[in-house]
């Protein structure tokens, strides 16, 4: 693993909603330049933990440091420009064109994103720059999420956080977009944290996999180590699903 200083640090982060403790004292460092997958079943607390990074959720206890600074002390608008956010709901503004959607972050900061930069961002996510003038309801689901990624990248973020970013897409689009994001991660020198419930996706894209269960991180391993049987019972149960599927597919293939 990269020896660089941590870009992101969770310090005993606890989130309670009434009686429910969604995140229970998580402490963890995310190194600069790493691609981390946060995996867990529904209700394990992974989305909640992710949202403490851009302060969409405020921890009940503990704190999150981003580049050494407490995120709670940073102005939210400024923080969220440095943290690109992609999520399952996509949330393109239906009354804005594709270009206006992409340019919204810089616009909020009082900056006008030039059309060349919009075209460049569209090319980056493999969309025709002519899409800039279209409205979101003229796009397919995959195209919309590509615009969502372009919007997250528009402000030149250091950190990309993604909450089930490909959850609502068909498998082919999902695979292509996943690989595209990994490629952009390398190319732009990003640090990426991706929440997913799909262990296969995590194993294939990330270079570090955290498994959450009942609000705690129970496993912190590389994909290779997980496939070799490390990480404990919860992690191995999640790994066994794609592994058994792969084995069954292999058997089918050998019979054919």
């Amino acid at each position, binding site marked *: 693993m990269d020896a660089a200083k941590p870009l992101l640090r969770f310090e005993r982060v606890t989130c309670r909603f009434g009686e429910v403790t969604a995140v229970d004292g998580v402490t963890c460092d995310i190194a600069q330049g790493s691609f981390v997958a946060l995996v867990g079943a529904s209700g394990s607390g992974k989305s909640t933990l992710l949202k403490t990074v*851009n302060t*969409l959720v405020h921890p009940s206890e503990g704190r999150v440091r981003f580049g050494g600074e407490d995120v709670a002390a940073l102005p*939210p*608008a*400024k*923080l*969220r*420009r440095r943290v690109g*956010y992609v*999520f399952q*709901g*996509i*949330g*393109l*503004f*239906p*009354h804005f064109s594709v270009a206006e959607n992409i340019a*919204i*972050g810089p616009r*909020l900061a009082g900056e006008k994103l030039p059309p060349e930069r919009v075209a460049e961002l569209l090319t980056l996510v493999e969309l025709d720059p002519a899409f800039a003038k279209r409205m979101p309801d003229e796009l397919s689901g995959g195209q919309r999420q590509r615009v969502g990624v372009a*919007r997250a990248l528009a402000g030149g973020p250091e950190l990309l956080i993604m909450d089930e970013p490909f959850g609502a897409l068909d498998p082919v689009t999902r695979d292509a977009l996943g690989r595209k994001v990994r490629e952009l991660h390398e190319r732009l020198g990003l640090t990426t944290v991706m929440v997913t419930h799909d262990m296969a996706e995590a194993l294939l894209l990330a270079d570090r996999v955290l498994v959450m269960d009942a609000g705690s991180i129970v496993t912190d391993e590389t994909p290779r180590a997980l496939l070799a049987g490390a990480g404990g019972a919860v992690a191995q149960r999640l790994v066994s699903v794609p592994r058994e599927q792969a084995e069954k597919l292999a058997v089918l293939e050998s019979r054919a």
Partner: protein
Amino acid sequence: MEEIWDILPGLGDKLAAHVVLSASAIGLAILIALPLAVWAGRSPLVSRLALSLASLVQTIPALALLALFFPLLLSLRAVFGEGLPTLGFLPALMALTLYALLPILRNAVTAQANLDPGVLEAADGVGMTRWQKLVLVQAPLSAPFIMAGIRTASVWTIGAATLATTIGQPSLGDPIFAGLQTQNWALVLAGCFASAGLALAADNLLWVIEVGLARRRRWMTFGGIGVVALGILAALWAQGSGSDERRIVIAAKSFSEQYILAQLIGQRLEAAGYAVEYRDGLGSAVVHSAVANSSVDISVDYTGTIWTNYLKRTDNPGREAMYATIRDWEAQNTGIRVLGRLGFENAYAFAMRAERARSLGVTSLTDLAAKAPQLTVGGDPEFFERPEWIAVRDAYGLRFARSRNFAPTFMYNALQSGEADVISAYTSDGRIAADRLVVLEDPAGALPSYDAMLMLSPRIAQDRGVVAALEPLIGAIGVEAMREANFAVDREDAGKLTPKQAAETLAKKVGLTK
């Protein structure tokens, strides 16, 4: 009904007043509802409270809501001083604004609640502040739905604004109410057409704005807003271009005799060089207070009405004593100057068809009491609440099988068609003679006298010109002449006159003009 086309062009000033009133009410409702909707979007408690209150307002009939602001504003004078208007534009504006709140508020709250949560999360995710989120995302996405609410509110408000006539605010309700009272159907239809046309025009213009907002067609949105603004400006200009010197305002309650006398008074004042204005169709309870606070300047009221409703007396000291007492009481308590009596009485009486009375053997209220349990009594909407009715009922022990309310003009029809066996009639009513009705005797003297009196507001009480112009009316109008004039307005055949024509005829008849 070609007359409608003759009447419509004359309704310009009523239309202008109607537009200004409706637009002000809707504008004020928008100013209140939108911030309230934003607040409601952040607090479920506020949302529930605001929507329940707005719904509660809707359950009050518009007519009652308008009337309720009169006593409310009257009591608020203790705080804001005597200058606070209690009739006319202000109470009408307040009532209509309350009425317009619900559809705007409900649509705005619903629109916010139904926004895509993904879009709202994205707004936070890209770093919008609460204000930016409201302006850039929530407001534009809710706008078409809010506009639909404003459309509904506009149609309701333009319709309900016709009722503002009853509290002395000029509107397209003026021809409707005047026409209903005098059975001038062309006048009623002209008022209805004008207000329905206005409502349709507003609805369609606002629809253009709504579509413009929904489809993001700026030219539609701004074009629609432009035309609406032009319409309102034109109405304001039309209103403002009238002379703004204070005119003499003459009140009329909602029956023919009052319309005729208001015209008669107005004609005399105009001949003396005064500018006059009519407030027709005022509720009976409103008129006295309106004169007392100089919201209107002249009214014709009746001794029995003032005696029971304002002096709260139930005794009957006789006609002359009653008048003298009232004149002194008004001078001391309200500042109203009772200039004198016109010369006729418009007392309450009970009337029956002649052959019905004969077959039942009824000639007096005492006879009636014995037969009442088989009979239906008809009265105007106020009648069964009035102390006069209670006094008569208790004096004779009247117990009718049924009692029904009719508008004054329809009571006689109800009597003819048998829907009522006996009605509360007015002694100056021309239809008593025309329909050959029997007026039942009142041996117990339970019904007080109702001499018509000329009442002047404190503002003009000492105006010598006014007094000089009106003094010739005192004692000049006998009951026969008044009945004839009333009948001329109420009849439905070719001899029908407008209140204005009837006033001219009456003036000639009693020798006031040649």
